[in-house]
């Protein structure tokens, strides 16, 4: 292969980061995210067990769903019993609870936070709004299907889902994690272009790097 071709391919492998101003591009990574295969069966099983017992949730309450997270965190339902703890920063969180409707302005932050989370990461979608638009199906400013923008592992029905339903959702997520079925992060990197296309279609002022490392 000629060197020129290799350069070309390398260039294609890089992200364009077109939303950024010229002088800032150098400050951001332009590498593509790549998927990470699970480790060998037993080690991964052990880690999955630990992951399922220590679920760090990003305390980003988007939409109404955040309201029911509060009773869940506090004395009546006390989710810390189940090893679920809120983390204030996406870097440390593994679970993203998208609490219902996401306006365009919020989905931008959701995408960004999701990308900043370090894998393996899981997404729980609450309520009707994330499934098929919910009661805002005809609103010009809320998305209809969350799975078009980030991969979703669990959907919980309700408007709002009650804390009990949320706990049931977390339990189901635990099962899935232990069974090793939650590979949303790899799904995201494998279908990266598709997700990006969808995201860029609705987020008109894309002024962030293409992938928020």
């Amino acid at each position: 292969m000629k060197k020129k071709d290799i350069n070309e391919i390398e260039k294609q492998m890089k992200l364009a980061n077109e939303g950024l101003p010229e002088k800032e591009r150098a400050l951001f990574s332009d590498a593509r995210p790549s998927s990470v295969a699970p480790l060998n069966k037993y080690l991964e099983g052990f880690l999955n067990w630990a992951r399922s017992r220590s679920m760090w949730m990003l305390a980003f309450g988007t939409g109404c769903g955040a309201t029911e997270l509060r009773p869940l965190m506090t004395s009546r339902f006390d989710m810390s019993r189940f090893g679920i703890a809120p983390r204030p920063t996406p870097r440390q969180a593994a679970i993203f609870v998208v609490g219902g409707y996401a306006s365009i302005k919020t989905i931008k932050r959701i995408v960004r936070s999701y990308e900043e989370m370090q894998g393996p990461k899981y997404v729980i979608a609450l309520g009707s709004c994330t499934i098929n638009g919910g009661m805002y199906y005809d609103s010009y400013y809320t998305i209809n299907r969350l799975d078009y923008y980030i991969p979703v592992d669990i959907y919980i029905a309700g408007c709002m889902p009650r804390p009990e339903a949320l706990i049931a959702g977390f339990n189901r997520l635990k099962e899935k994690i232990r069974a090793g079925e939650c590979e949303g992060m790899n799904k995201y990197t494998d279908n990266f272009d598709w997700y990006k296309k969808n995201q860029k279609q609705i987020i008109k002022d894309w002024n962030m790097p293409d992938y928020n490392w």
Partner: protein
Amino acid sequence: MKLKDILSPLRVWERAAQKPWTIKDPINDRPGATNYRGFHKNDFNKCIGCGSCEEICQNAAIDLVPVEGQETKDGNSGLRPMIDYGRCCWCALCVDVCPTGSLTMSNKYTWVADMPEEYRFVPGKTETKWQESEKGYKRSEDIHLIDYERVEMLEIKPEKRDKSFIEIVKGYNKEQAMKEAERCLECGICIATCPAHMDIPAYIAAIREDDIENAFRILYETNPLPEICGRICTHKCETACALHNNGESLAIRWLKRYIADQIPSEKYKEVLGTEHLDDPKIGKSIAIIGAGPAGISAAYYLAIMGYKIKIFEALPDSGGMTRYGIPEYRLPYDQIDKDIEYIKSLGVEMQFNTRVGKDITLDKLHKDYDAVFAGTGLHLGRSTRIPGADNKRVYFATDLLREVSLGNEIDVAENIVVIGGGNVAMDITRTLARLQNKKYGKIQILTTSLESEDIMPADREEIVEAREEKAIIDPGWGPKEIEIQNGKIKGLHVVKCLSVFDEEGRFNPKFDDKQKKFFKADMVVESIGQGMDLSYLSEDIKSNLKFGPRGRIQVNENFQSNLKWLFVGGDIIQGPDVIHGVANGYIAAKAIDGFLNKNDKRRKK
């Protein structure tokens, strides 16, 4: 800085000594409240698939889908709501609006799924954990999203009406009609039940919009006799009405009447757009026997399709049974005229006092016209054939009604017994009651029927009104014998009737001979059904015609007999009622059109 402010906060730890509030096992320990709005349930036995839930759902979460095992029938569309939990907001408006009360909610609220597509389900069909759950939100009887009470129809008081034949029902005024029209759910289930398949929701919507002319046009799409039907239709649609499940059905008939009443007869052509139909263009002509609803309906549609029509009628005026079988207090003659004059004005010729078979033969009609439609109706009375029924003071109801309509004097007796439980029986009862009242100043008429009160075929309001007019209705008796002394009727012996139909639904009355009664009478009127008079068919035709069960001429679904040129419809085929006649005439008219055009093409080939 106070010391209290430093020490007092340490009382936080008081809480540590108390029992924590935490629920041990939240998923199982906490069922939803008794009227919690959880996941949906649907009782298929009650659901009629009217789609009100779909209509009111502000999230467009509900679809109506066909469900296996749910058949489409009168008053039940066979569709069932499928709910998308990707839309639902659990506001329970669908539950509150459900006219049958079939849609409810359980108190279950936990549903987790991996795939969003799972969240579409048909409550009642899809197997769910909560279908059997007892608790949950149900429609409260105290709240009213839909008006289940009909707007009251003004009627003339019994004291005022029982002497005269003026129309009882006054009809809705604009305000009342709008209010009544507002009750419509627009589900459209009634359309299938209406024999003429009138677009009921559309014209009711037009009333709501106060666009009477449009409503009127919709009426004429399938029914050219709105004034008649607006008064005396058997309104089967109203039994199919979704509101009927939980209250009073919509007064569809009265609304139809309201529309027709609003348009003066001189505006008919303008509104319906039939000003320039005078000259038939096709050059084919059709003979119609009988100016009853079926014949007139056929004539109207054929006329607007451009055929030349001639109607032969044995009686001196048009309308058939509507004029000669229905008393004037229910259907004033000028209203019949209003409908029929318009049809006449479209160029339909009517020849009265001409009995086919006597004054003109059917064969001649066949020869002179391209097709013949016979809607001759049921004008012969049927007898109970009990001992004494052959007395001259035993009458048939149809004959008496015809005589009254023709204006002939009737020898009304002081004590009358009417046998029969149908609408005709009520008509004759009330007619004779009026005549009695005129003649004797009092009413002594008794109506008895085989059927007990709850299964009497007459309309409820007819029975109520008859009673208001002081006629006695004593149903549930089987006539045994008319007692006659010296050629004069003394009365009627009856025995208790236990059941009318057997288990297979056939007519097979059972009596209890021990319970007897005697009704005193000078005159007996039989009103147990009518028969047809097919004497106009010549032997030749008769032998070629195929007959179906109960002596009816066999016709295909287009009311065409096996003689291709002869179409038969109306009471002699279906019914008996006006709306079937109208529907038959409508179908037959189109079939005749198709039949003649087809012949055309063949000839050209």
